C-alpha cells in the first residue's frame, strides 16, 4: 500500500535519466567526458574573469592553463621548485607521492558518500542524507576509537570503523523506515535529518563528550590503535582509500552478482512489477537506505580515523553533499563513483595550490563541480548535439 502512496506523493527517482539513460558504456563515457570538459571550460572562463578583476589585473587568456597546471601540481604532479617534496620527485619523476596522497585522502570520503547516494539511486531512492550519515559515522567511530584503550591497531581500527558504519546505518534506517511504513518522502526526511545530525552532534561534542583538555570544543583524540596508519613513507595517504575501493567492489558485487542486488535494482526500475515478482519493496527500501547510510558512515569513519582523529563541534564539511554530484557523475555505478570521486579529489586537493600560485579563490572548485553536475543533469541537451543521435532522430522522423 505504502509504495502506491509513495508514488502518488510524487518525486520518484526516474532510473533512466539517472543511470545514464539509454546507450552503451562508450556513449555514456563520452557524454560524461563532455560534461566534465564543459564544466572545466566554464571554470576557465571564470579564471580569466577573476584574473581581470584582481587589482591591476588584465584579461589573460593563458591564465586558465597556468591555473589548471597549478591545480595538477598540487594534486598529482611534482611542482617545479618543490622537487624535494616527494620520493618520486627526487628521482625526476612525474607523480608527487605527497600530493597524490592528499588527493587519495580527499577522494576516500567522496567515494563512500558517492556510493551511499548511488546505492539509493539503484533502488529508486534519493538519499540526500549522506551528509548526516557521514557525520554520524565520523562521530561514532571517533568516540569509540577514543575509548579503545590499549587495543592494538587492526582490531581497534576495525571496531571503530564498524561503529561508524552502525552510526551511519542508523541515520539511513530512519528515513528508510519512514518511507516504507509511513510514506514520508526520503528527500525531505533526509534533508531534515542532515540538520538534526549536524546540530545534535555539535551539542554532544560541545557538552557531554567534550574533551576537557582541548582548546576548542571537540571530542577526545582517538587511541593510537584506532588511527588509520599511512603505509607509504613520505605520503600522507592512509588506509581509508583501500577500505573505500574495497567497499566499492563489494557494492558492485552485491548489486550485480547477487539476488538481493537484483531485487534492489528491480524495485528501482519498477516497484509495482517488483511486488508482482514476489519482492517486498518496503523491506528493500529499508534495507537499501540502511546499507547506504552505513556506506556514508564508513566514509565518516575513514575521515575521522585517518585525518581529523576526533570530532570537532564545528565540523564544516560538505563530503556528504558532494556525494550527490559524485554519484551522478559516476552514473550510480560503483566503479563510476570511484572515478568521479578521484576526479573531485584531484580538484579538491589541488585547489589550494592553485590559489597560492594564481590568487584564484578556492571556491572555483565548487562552481566547476556545480557546472559539471548541471551538464550531467542536462545531458539530454548534450545527447542532442552528438552526431549519432542526430542521425538516428533524422531517420526516425523520415520513417514517420
Amino acid at each position: 500500500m505504502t509504495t502506491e502512496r509513495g508514488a502518488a506523493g510524487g518525486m520518484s527517482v526516474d532510473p533512466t535519466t539517472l543511470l545514464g539513460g539509454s546507450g552503451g558504456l562508450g556513449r555514456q563515457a563520452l557524454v560524461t567526458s563532455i560534461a566534465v570538459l564543459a564544466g572545466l571550460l566554464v571554470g576557465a572562463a571564470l579564471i580569466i574573469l577573476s584574473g581581470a578583476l584582481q587589482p591591476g589585473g588584465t584579461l589573460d587568456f593563458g591564465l586558465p592553463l597556468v591555473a589548471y597546471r597549478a591545480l595538477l601540481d598540487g594534486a598529482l604532479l611534482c611542482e617545479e621548485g618543490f622537487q624535494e617534496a616527494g620520493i618520486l620527485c627526487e628521482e625526476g619523476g612525474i607523480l608527487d607521492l605527497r600530493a597524490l596522497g592528499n588527493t587519495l585522502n580527499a577522494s576516500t570520503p567522496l567515494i563512500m558518500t558517492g556510493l551511499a547516494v548511488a546505492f539509493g539511486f539503484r533502488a529508486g531512492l534519493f538519499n540526500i542524507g549522506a551528509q548526516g550519515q557521514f557525520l554520524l559515522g565520523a562521530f561514532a567511530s571517533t568516540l569509540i576509537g577514543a575509548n579503545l584503550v590499549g587495543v592494538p591497531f587492526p582490531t581497534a581500527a576495525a571496531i571503530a570503523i564498524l561503529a561508524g558504519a552502525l552510526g551511519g546505518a542508523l541515520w539511513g534506517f530512519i528515513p528508510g523506515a519512514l518511507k516504507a511504513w509511513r510514506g514520508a518522502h526520503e528527500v525531505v526526511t533526509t534533508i531534515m535529518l542532515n540538520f538534526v545530525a549536524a546540530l545534535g552532534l555539535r551539542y554532544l561534542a560541545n557538552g557531554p563528550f567534550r574533551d576537557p583538555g582541548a582548546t576548542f570544543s571537540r571530542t577526545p583524540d582517538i587511541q593510537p590503535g584506532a588511527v588509520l596508519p599511512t603505509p607509504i613513507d613520505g605520503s600522507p595517504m592512509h588506509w581509508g582509500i583501500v577500505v573505500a575501493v574495497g567497499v566499492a567492489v563489494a557494492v558492485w558485487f552485491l548489486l550485480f552478482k547477487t539476488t538481493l542486488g537484483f531485487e534492489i535494482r528491480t524495485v528501482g526500475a519498477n516497484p509495482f512489477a517488483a511486488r508482482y515478482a514476489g519482492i517486498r519493496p518496503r523491506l528493500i527500501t529499508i534495507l537499501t537506505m540502511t546499507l547506504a547510510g552505513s556506506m556514508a558512515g564508513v566514509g565518516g569513519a575513514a575521515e575521522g580515523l585517518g585525518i581529523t582523529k576526533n570530532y570537532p563541534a564545528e565540523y564544516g564539511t560538505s563530503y556528504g553533499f558532494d556525494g550527490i554530484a559524485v554519484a551522478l557523475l559516476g552514473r550510480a555505478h560503483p566503479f563510476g563513483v570511484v572515478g568521479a570521486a578521484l576526479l573531485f579529489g584531484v580538484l579538491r586537493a589541488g585547489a589550494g595550490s592553485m590559489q597560492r600560485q594564481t590568487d584564484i579563490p578556492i571556491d572555483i572548485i565548487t562552481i566547476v563541480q556545480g557546472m559539471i553536475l548541471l551538464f550531467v543533469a542536462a545531458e539530454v541537451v548534450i545527447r542532442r548535439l552528438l552526431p549519432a543521435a542526430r542521425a538516428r532522430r533524422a531517420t526516425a522522423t523520415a520513417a514517420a
Partner: protein
Amino acid sequence: MTAFAIGRFASISYRAWAVLGVIVLLALAAMLFNVPYLGGFVDWVINRVPPTFSLIVQYATPIAFAALCGVMCERSGVVNIGIEGLMLTSAFVAFLAGAYLGPVVGTPWAALLGVGFAVLASMLLSLLHAWLSITIKADQVISGAVIIILAAGGTAFFNQLLVSTSGLSGTLILPHLSIPRELTTIPFVGPLLLALLNQGPIAMSLIVCVVGLQILLFRSRWGLRTRAVGEHPKAADTVGIDVYWVRYRNVVLGGAFAGLGGAFLTTELSNSFQDGMTGGVGFIGLAAVIFGRWTPIGAFGAALLFGAVQSAQLTLRIPSSAPPGELGELVAALPPEFFGILPYLVTIVVLAGVVGRAIPPAADGIPYDKESRS
C-alpha cells in the same frame, strides 16, 4: 473570507491545533487558579514574551519568503530544494549592488535597488531551475542541488574576489517604519503592532504577500490553474491550460519571493554578507511548506512558529528574560541546538503522519510529458 482564511490556517493540522489549544487552556487555568510553578511561568509569558515578538518576526521573515517560493513552485508541481541557493545568491547580489551603488545614488536608494537586483538574480536562477526541470525534464531534486552548489560556490568566489580583498562595505540598513507611541502602549496588542509594523519594507510586505497569495491561490483563475497543473497536469492540459507555461511562470515568480527573503538578510537584518549566511533558512522554508500544508497562510504560521523557536534560543540565554521557577530553569538549561533542531524534528513527525498527515500536491516533482500516455 475570514472563516475561509481561518479554515485554511487551521489546515496546518487539526490535531496539532487541538494540542495547542489544550496547552493554552491549561495555561489560562493555571493563571486563573494560581497554580504554583506554572503561575509564575504564565506571568513570565505575558510580561516577557511580547517584547520578543519583533525578534520572532525578523526570524520568521526569511523562512516565510522561502516558504512562499516553495508553495508557488510545489503547487504547480515543481519541487524546488534549491531555495537555499536562490536566497544565498540574492543576499549576495543585494549586498553587492548596495555596496557599489551606495556612493552613487545614496544609501536608501542603493539598498532598494539592491533588493531589485536581488529579486532579478533569484528569478534568473529560478529560470534555470524551471528550464532544467520543465523543458529538459531533468530530475528536479538534482536541479535544485545544482542551484545550491552553484550559489554556494559562486557567492563565495565573488565574495573573496570583490569584497574580501577590497574591503567593500555594505550600505545602511533599510529604515524601519516608526509607529506612534500611543499605539505601542496598548497592552498585548501594542507589542504585536510594534512587531509587525516596526520593520523594514521587506518584512512589512511579507504579510501582504502572504494574504495576497492565499487569496490568489484559492480564489483566482491563476490559482485554480496552478492547483490543477499541480494535481493533475494531464487533465489541465486537456482543457487547454498550457502546463509548461504555468509551471515556468510559477517557478520564476516564486523565485522573486526567495529573492526578497535573501535581500532581507543583507539589507534589513544586517548590512554585511558572509559565506553561507543563509545557514539552512531555505530548508526550514521547505519544512514550513510541509508543516503549513502547501498553503501560504499555513506556511506563514509555520514560519512564525519556527521563528519563535529560533528566537527562543536567543532570549532564553539572557538571565533577565529567562522564565522563572523550576520549569523556567528546565527550559533555560536546554542547549541552543535543541531549539535549532525542533523545526526539522517537527517536520519529520508531521511527514511521518504522527500528528496529522501532510499530503503534497499529487503531481509534485513529476515532470510533465505531453506525449506520455499516463
